[in-house]
Structure formats: structure tokens, C-alpha cells
């Protein structure tokens, strides 16, 4: 009987016109006749039904009152009532409400901070005009069967054969002399302000959006001109206008300040406080145009037309661009979008393998998870709490509320709470920003909220509020008043119970996963810090020397050695912690023709190996007067011996480029880069003090202050007009893992927040469970169950949840952690105990919460709880 129905349109027509109070009997009669007729013929029945509907269409039966009383209930008064009830509910259980809102705003705060950071990272280098048309030229060089990628290209690259190439910008940045210079404020010859700048060709300010505030718009055209930043102008001249004044570089070369440019914004890859033309650089280096042409600098090209990076790359590798000489060195160019460089700057084998973007994605995921967790919590707590409000709903329904009103009420409550939580989180984010910024390198601010951001935020909030409100409002509004008021509705909650449990599984999986991941991360960073890198980096300070100081190295060393806390002084031309590019021009007797191996070559003083703590395994150390007066003496690492395949290395003659060297000793292997990279073979060669870049002073451990006082005093006595620049080597070492350290701090922060949120969720659910099972527990207690048994019963609610979330979290955490560990050439084996401890910890925390929450219920006298009905 059910499968046949009268024509829909006629039925709908009837329902539309008919008075509601008459509809049931009229429709009923029409249906009855229809079904009876349908047994003979369906077609006739349809016709009859239509006819009847039309005949019923009489003035008396028509719905004359157009006002629908369901709608009229959502009046201002109703909204006021909803607001009042929300506030009352909030205040009735302040602790619970606080947990609820606090969890949500913690999640939002996280999300806001992450969004700000991600927006900042993505804004890098996008402020230039037509950023999509600016490309950075990268150079790939094949060596050791591997491809190394550098973000520089030949400074005399000839793009005349590429019609699309418009303007070429050549920039030479750096963080040491001659990029970092000491400037003296007017009239104060003993004061020294270090500023970092670039040398560039005249297109720097026309291609990039570095606005010039005052003076010449094209400052790099002339010979002896300098453009300085506002910051530098302020530091050197205060509020006076410096344009037109002359300033000395290195106390010798005079240049004219022709322009002042706006401080470079923090979201620029290029950072500098002054810009000088290449003419000055040539003079600084003391080289002619020919020597200068050998240099590789940061090269940017802006194209005339839009062209893809691939197409441009193809044109850059034309014979007319890559000269025969470079071709022979297995060198190739790549055009790389300037906007991608900041986030995707990691290259392996000539292919991009990510970079910062990996961390950005990681944090987007973590932020998303944290918000999801917070929302889940909110939904969970709202539903759990709302079931306790069933009576209210029952009464509301009895006194005339329809489902729509109840839905509206719960939605409105959810919206109010979500927006309240959001307001709190904005305040919290603002308060936390300074702390958050100490974790990052560049400061971010809420000012990043611009453009479409507010729109996204509102959309995001609406979604969260809807998500959080929809479940409680739909479930609760479906309660039948009679059952609620008769206290029979508990069976109804089994569905929502399951729902809550699955949400808890998601939460716990996320928490366990994040904790494990951050555990592995910290373990690896700890491994990196504690790994023996082959020499001792602690208790050592690196000093930037001036040229005159280097000339007086011996007496400088003598002065320092008078202090017992100073153990050694040495010099080298690169920092052994981070040597940079390798040297492929090393040859030795019996070297295969086509073999290309990269060595790290370090020029150093005789004291260097000993001061650093390197061990001489074979042969002898350098001596202050070289024994071999014809050939330069070198020490090689064991790796180098192996790489060259020498059986008896001492006395062997090798060549670096065209110069001849002789091996006088073998030293132990040591790392010359971050542990992401595989250890390279090292060659230490003896060099003059005049050719080194830094002095290294080792001091007694524990006497840092005394040593530093002596060093500054001695430095001041040698160089009274310079401020000493120095770095601690262990800090420099940490700088190698800056990204990882920042990431680990952020992850720790988010781990804590995740834990708090998950903890709140478990507390909420445990409380609710204990409350719901009050009677059951009392009955069991009456029948002789022990406290432990009752607790176990409460805990059992979480057993399945725990097992499932562990099963989900562990493989995911393993995958992420393993992937991350792969980026290190030297890594710890996967620390499985972290997995175990995390899981055990989570079980303990849940057990504790269940115990604390459950004891309240269990210790209550059964007679009291059972008497309540």
C-alpha cells in the first residue's frame, strides 16, 4: 500500500491551501478514497484524487491566516531570552564553561599565530613590482657525482641572446668585510658602528621595490656614491639630513651619500643598510675588471614578457650564455622565481627538495589539527553538557517551543561562545606575540591582518561556530519532551556517546602523534648537539680581526697568553663549523682523469689544529717556520686520505689548482657543515696571518667572563678605534640548526597547547561519564563492588579509545618523524622508547583524571545518590 502514492503536486497543492486544522481529516479522507480506488486502477485513482482535491478547494477550507505562528516565535524577546539563558548556563558551572571556552580560545590563539607566521613567510619578496617576472639565476655544479646548487651566477653573464631577458640586477651581499663595514659618526673617530650592506649594479633600485625617500633615485650609477637606509642615517647623523655629505669607508675611501632608502622590510630576502656600486668593491678587493669578471654574485633577471621558469632556464643554458669554460666545469644555470626562493631553497642533486616550506606545511597541519581538536572538544563538551540540560529542553518544548526554536537557541549559544572565545584569543594572541616573536627570527605582528584576511577569519569563525553548534542543536532538539521529562531519554545518548568517543579518538591520536614527533625532534637535536663533530667547539670565541691587528698577530697572541685562562689563539680563513663551498680543483698522484671530488680546504695558522682540538694521527703538525720552504705544507683528514686512496700519505705531493702542496700529517675527521650534510674530506694548509678571516681564542671552561674581559682589553689596546666583533663558536653551531631549533620551540609550544586541549577534553568526558554513571556506581557499590572495581569500570570507557588512537597515531608519527630524520645525514636510530613513554604517559594521565573525577562520585554515599528519585 505504501509504494503507491497520489500525485505529488495535487497533494502539495492541498497542503498549501488547506487550513492546518482541517488538513488532517481532509487529506485522510482523500487518501482513503485514493487507496481504495487504487486497488482497481491507479490511473482512475489519480484522477479521482485530483478531482477531490479540486472539489475541496472551497473558501471554507482555504488557509486564510497567512501569519505562520512558528516564525513569529523568533522575536527579539526570544533572542534576549537565548542570550540570558546562555549567560546563566555559562555562570551556573563556571569551571566547566571556563574549560570549554579556554580550550577553544587556546586553539584559536594557536591558529592565529600560525596564520600570521605563515602569511609572513608567504609574503616574502612579493612586494616587488611584478614579482612573477623576476627570476633568480641559480648555478648547478656537478662534483663527486653529485650536483651542488648555488644561488649565484657569473657576474658577467651575457643575456643578449635571450630576447625575453629585460633587466639584469647583480647584487653581492655578505656578512663580513667588505660587506660589513665600520662607519664612524660625524666627529667621533673612535666610535664604530657596524653596518651591513651590498654592492650592486645600477638596476638594484629600479627592479626591486626598495623605495628611495630622499636624494638621487638612481644612486648606484656614479662612481663614489653610497645609498644608506633610514636606520643607518639615524645611527650616523641623528635627525640631520645626510644627503650630500661624504663618509669614509674603512677610514680611507671617501664616498658621497646621495640617497636615503626606506628600511628594508623584514619580508625581503635581501637585507642591507647601504648599497655601493661595484667600482668600490673592485677597489676594496684591489682587483681589475678581468679579475672581477671571475666572480659569481646573486643575479636577478626581470623579463620583458611573462615567460615560464622552465623556458627561461632552457634559454639560459644556451652556448651563448654558459661559456665553454663553464661548460667544461659541468656548470649549468637555472632561472628560479624570486618569490619561491625564500621557501624552497633546498636543492639536492640539482632538484628542489623543499626548504622552509616543509616547516610551513608542518605548521599549517599542526595548526589545523589544533583547531580541529579545540572544536572537537567544544562539540564534545557542549553535547555532554547539553544532555544535562535535557529538562530545560523538555520544558521549552512543552511550553510551545518547536524544533526550530531549540536549534536556533543552541546555534545562538554556540555562536556566542565561539565569538567570545575568538575575542579572547585575539587578546591572547596580541599578548603572546612578543613571546612568540622571541621564538622566531623575524618579528611578526597582527598588522599582517590585511586584504582578504578579515574575510577569511569571519568565514573560518562561522564554520567553526556552525560545526560546534550543529551537532548539539540537532541532537538535543530531537528529544521528545515526554521522554525527557520522564527521565527516559538516556537510551538516546548512546549514539552521541559513540560520536563523542570517535571525536576523542581523533583528539588523542593527534596528541599522541604530535608528542611523539616533537620527542623525536628533540632527541635528534640533542643528538646533533652532543655528537662529537671531531673538534671542540665549546669555550671558544671567534674574533673578527682588523688588518693591522693581523699584522701584529704574534704580539696580540702574546698579550692574551699572559692570562692563564686563555689556552690558545689561532687563525683561519674560514670558520671550521661552516666552511661553505668545497674545492674540486684538488689533484694527487694517480688521480683518475674524470674523477671530481670536492674537498674542504681551510687555510690556517700553525696553532689552528691544536687550538681547535684536532688530533694529529700521523706525521707532524705545522711549525711556525715551515720546514719545507718550497712547497706549502698541508694536513689532511683521514677522509681525504681515503678519498685520494693514498697508502702512505706523508710526504706525498698534491696540487690545489696550480699550486703545489706537500702532506706533512694526517688529522682526525671532523664535520665542516651542519649534520644534514655528509662529512667531507678536509685539507688544512698553512697560510699567513694576513690572509685569514677570523681569530679563534680558546679559554678555560668556566672562566668565560675573565677570558672575555682580557680579550676585550687586549683588543682595545691594539685597536682603540674599533669595537670588537666576536661570536661564541657554540652559538654559531646552534645557528646552523636555526630552522630546526625554531621549529622545535614552536612544536613544543603547540605540543603543550595540544596537551592542554586534550586534557580538557578528557576531563570533560570523564566528568560526564562519572555523572552519567552515578546510579550504576551506587548500585554496584551497594552490591559490594570495591572502589578499584568502580574506577576500573569508569576507566574501561576509555580503553577502546586509547587502543584505537594509539594504533592510528603511532604509524603516522613514525612516518613523519622518519621523513624528518631523513633530512639529516647523521641521525639517531628511531628512539622507540619515546613511543612507549608517550603512550604510557597518556594512559597515566587518563587514569589520573578518571581517578580524580571518579572518586567524587564513588566516595559519595550510595544512599544519597539512590534516594534522589
Amino acid at each position, binding site marked *: 500500500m505504501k509504494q503507491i502514492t497520489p500525485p505529488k503536486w495535487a497533494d502539495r497543492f492541498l497542503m498549501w491551501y488547506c487550513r492546518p486544522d482541517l488538513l488532517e481529516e481532509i487529506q485522510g479522507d482523500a487518501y482513503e478514497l485514493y487507496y481504495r480506488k487504487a486497488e482497481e486502477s491507479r490511473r482512475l485513482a489519480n484522477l479521482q484524487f485530483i478531482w477531490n482535491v479540486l472539489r475541496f478547494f*472551497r473558501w471554507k477550507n482555504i488557509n486564510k491566516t497567512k501569519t505562520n505562528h512558528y516564525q513569529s516565535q523568533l522575536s527579539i524577546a526570544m533572542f534576549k531570552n537565548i542570550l540570558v539563558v546562555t549567560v546563566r548556563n555559562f555562570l551556573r558551572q563556571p569551571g566547566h564553561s571556563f574549560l570549554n571556552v579556554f580550550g577553544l580560545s587556546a586553539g584559536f590563539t594557536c591558529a592565529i599565530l600560525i596564520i600570521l607566521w605563515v602569511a609572513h613567510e608567504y609574503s616574502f619578496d612579493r612586494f616587488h613590482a611584478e614579482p612573477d617576472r623576476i627570476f633568480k639565476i641559480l648555478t648547478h655544479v656537478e662534483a663527486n657525482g653529485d650536483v651542488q646548487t648555488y644561488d649565484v651566477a657569473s657576474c658577467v653573464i651575457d643575456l643578449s641572446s635571450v630576447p625575453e631577458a629585460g633587466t639584469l640586477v647583480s647584487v653581492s651581499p655578505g656578512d663580513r668585510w667588505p660587506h660589513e663595514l665600520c662607519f664612524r659618526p660625524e666627529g667621533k673617530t673612535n666610535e664604530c658602528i657596524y653596518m651591513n650592506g651590498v654592492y650592486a649594479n645600477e638596476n638594484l633600485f629600479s627592479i626591486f621595490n626598495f623605495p628611495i625617500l630622499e636624494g638621487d633615485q638612481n644612486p648606484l650609477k656614479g662612481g663614489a656614491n653610497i645609498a644608506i637606509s633610514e636606520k643607518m642615517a639615524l645611527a650616523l647623523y641623528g635627525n640631520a639630513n645626510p644627503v650630500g655629505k661624504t663618509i669614509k669607508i674603512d677610514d680611507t675611501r671617501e664616498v658621497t651619500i646621495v640617497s636615503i632608502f626606506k628600511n628594508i622590510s623584514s619580508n625581503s630576502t635581501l637585507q642591507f643598510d647601504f648599497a655601493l656600486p661595484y667600482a668600490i668593491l673592485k677597489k676594496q678587493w684591489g682587483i681589475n675588471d678581468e679579475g672581477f669578471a671571475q666572480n659569481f654574485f646573486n643575479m636577478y633577471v626581470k623579463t620583458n614578457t611573462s615567460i615560464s621558469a622552465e623556458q627561461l632556464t632552457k634559454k639560459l643554458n644556451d652556448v651563448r650564455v654558459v661559456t665553454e669554460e663553464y661548460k667544461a666545469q659541468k656548470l649549468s644555470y637555472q632561472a628560479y622565481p624570486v618569490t619561491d626562493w625564500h621557501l624552497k631553497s633546498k636543492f639536492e642533486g640539482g632538484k628542489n627538495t623543499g626548504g622552509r616550506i616543509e616547516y610551513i606545511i608542518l605548521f599549517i597541519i599542526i595548526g589545523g589539527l589544533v583547531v580541529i581538536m579545540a572544536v572537537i572538544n567544544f562539540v564534545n563538551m557542549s553535547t555532554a553538557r547539553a544532555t544535562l540540560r535535557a529538562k530545560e529542553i523538555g520544558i521549552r518544548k512543552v511550553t510551545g517551543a518547536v524544533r526550530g526554536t531549540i536549534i536556533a537557541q543552541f546555534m545562538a549559544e554556540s555562536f556566542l561562545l565561539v565569538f567570545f572565545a575568538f575575542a579572547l584569543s585575539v587578546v591572547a594572541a596580541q599578548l603572546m606575540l612578543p613571546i612568540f616573536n622571541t621564538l622566531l627570527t623575524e618579528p611578526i605582528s597582527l598588522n599582517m591582518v590585511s586584504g582578504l584576511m578579515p574575510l577569511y577569519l569571519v568565514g573560518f569563525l562561522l564554520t567553526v561556530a556552525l560545526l560546534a553548534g550543529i551537532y548539539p542543536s540537532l541532537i538535543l532538539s530531537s528529544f521528545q519532551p515526554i521522554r525527557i521529562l520522564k527521565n527516559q531519554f538516556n537510551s538516546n545518548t548512546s549514539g552521541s556517546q559513540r560520536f563523542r568517543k570517535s571525536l576523542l579518538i581523533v583528539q588523542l591520536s593527534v596528541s599522541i602523534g604530535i608528542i611523539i614527533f616533537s620527542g623525536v625532534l628533540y632527541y635528534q637535536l640533542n643528538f646533533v648537539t652532543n655528537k662529537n663533530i671531531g673538534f671542540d667547539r665549546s669555550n671558544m670565541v671567534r674574533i673578527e680581526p682588523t688588518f693591522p691587528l693581523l699584522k701584529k698577530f704574534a704580539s696580540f697572541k702574546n698579550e692574551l697568553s699572559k692570562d692563564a685562562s686563555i689556552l690558545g689563539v689561532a687563525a683561519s680563513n674560514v670558520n671550521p663549523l661552516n666552511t661553505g663551498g668545497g674545492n674540486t680543483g684538488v689533484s694527487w698522484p694517480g688521480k683518475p682523469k674524470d674523477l671530481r671530488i670536492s674537498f674542504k680546504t681551510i687555510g690556517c695558522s700553525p696553532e689552528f689544529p691544536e687550538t681547535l682540538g684536532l688530533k694529529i694521527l700521523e706525521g707532524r703538525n705545522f711549525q711556525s717556520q715551515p720546514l719545507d720552504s718550497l712547497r706549502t705544507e698541508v694536513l689532511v683528514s683521514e677522509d681525504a686520505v681515503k678519498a685520494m686512496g693514498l697508502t702512505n700519505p706523508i710526504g706525498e705531493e698534491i696540487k690545489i689548482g696550480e699550486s703545489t702542496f706537500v702532506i706533512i700529517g694526517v688529522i682526525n675527521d671532523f664535520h665542516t657543515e651542519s649534520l644534514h650534510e655528509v662529512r667531507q674530506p678536509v685539507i688544512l694548509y698553512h697560510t699567513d696571518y694576513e690572509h685569514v678571516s677570523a681569530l679563534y681564542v680558546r679559554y678555560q671552561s668556566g672562566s668565560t667572563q675573565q677570558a672575555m674581559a682580557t680579550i676585550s682589553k687586549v683588543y682595545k689596546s691594539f685597536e682603540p678605534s674599533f669595537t670588537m666583533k666576536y661570536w661564541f663558536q657554540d652559538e654559531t653551531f646552534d645557528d646552523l640548526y636555526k630552522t630546526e631549533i625554531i621549529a622545535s620551540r614552536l612544536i613544543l609550544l603547540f605540543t603543550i597547547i595540544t596537551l592542554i586541549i586534550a586534557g580538557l577534553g578528557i576531563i570533560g568526558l570523564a566528568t560526564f561519564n562519572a555523572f552519567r554513571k552515578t546510579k550504576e556506581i551506587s548500585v554496584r557499590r551497594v552490591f559490594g563492588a570495591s572502589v578499584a572495581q568502580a574506577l576500573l569500570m569508569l576507566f574501561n570507557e576509555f580503553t577502546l579509545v586509547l587502543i584505537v588512537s594509539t594504533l592510528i597515531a603511532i604509524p603516522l608519527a613514525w612516518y613523519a618523524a622518519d621523513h624528518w630524520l631523513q633530512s639529516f645525514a647523521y641521525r639517531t636510530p628511531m628512539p622507540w622508547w619515546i613511543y612507549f613513554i608517550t603512550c604510557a604517559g597518556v594512559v597515566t594521565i587518563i587514569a589520573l583524571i578518571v581517578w580524580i573525577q571518579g572518586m567524587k562520585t564513588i566516595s559519595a554515599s550510595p544512599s544519597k545518590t539512590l534516594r534522589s528519585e
Partner: protein
Amino acid sequence: MKGIYLGELEELVLLHVGILYPEAYGVAVMDEIERQAGRSLNISAIHSVLTRLEEKGLLKSKMGDPSPERGGRRKRIFLLTAAGKRALEEANELRSQLFNMIPKIALQFRIA
């Protein structure tokens, strides 16, 4: 009857509501009229008569139980009120009184 005029169809429906006690509702009344009086009426006509009678106070109604053949909808069961009963009695009385006043011859003639 203080000016309450009972129409022919109204009387017929009123009678059938009485006959069908306590199961008188729209479709049942329609069917019964067809069976007893052989008159086929549209359901909407029955409805309007029933409501008119209810307005006149001759019928009262209550909602019955839902039944499956009506798609789970309830019937509106009609019952005679005291006034309805009296109206029927009066009509019946008037009719038999008038019938008795017909000369016998006229009837015999008719039979023949």
C-alpha cells in the same frame, strides 16, 4: 426549531451519522449514503455538510485513531449532539404526522 432549517441533504447526513455511531466520519458517511439511499455524492460535499451541521450545533466531533489506509492520518469522528437528536426526532415526527394525514384512498390508489 426556532428557525433552524434542516435541508434535505443535511437531514440525510445527520441520519447517517446516527446510523454509523460511533464510527461516523467523512468517507464512511459517503459510503453509507450510497448504500442506503443510492446517492453518489462527492466527499467534499459530505465534508461541507458535516461542518455546517457542526456549526449549527447538531453534531460534535473528535479526532479518532490514525489508520494505515489513510496514510497514518486520524479520522474526525462525528457524533450527534442532543440538539441533533432532537432535530432528527422532530423531522421524523413531522414526517409521520404529515404521512398519516394522507387519505387512505390516495395510498391504495397508488398501490393499485
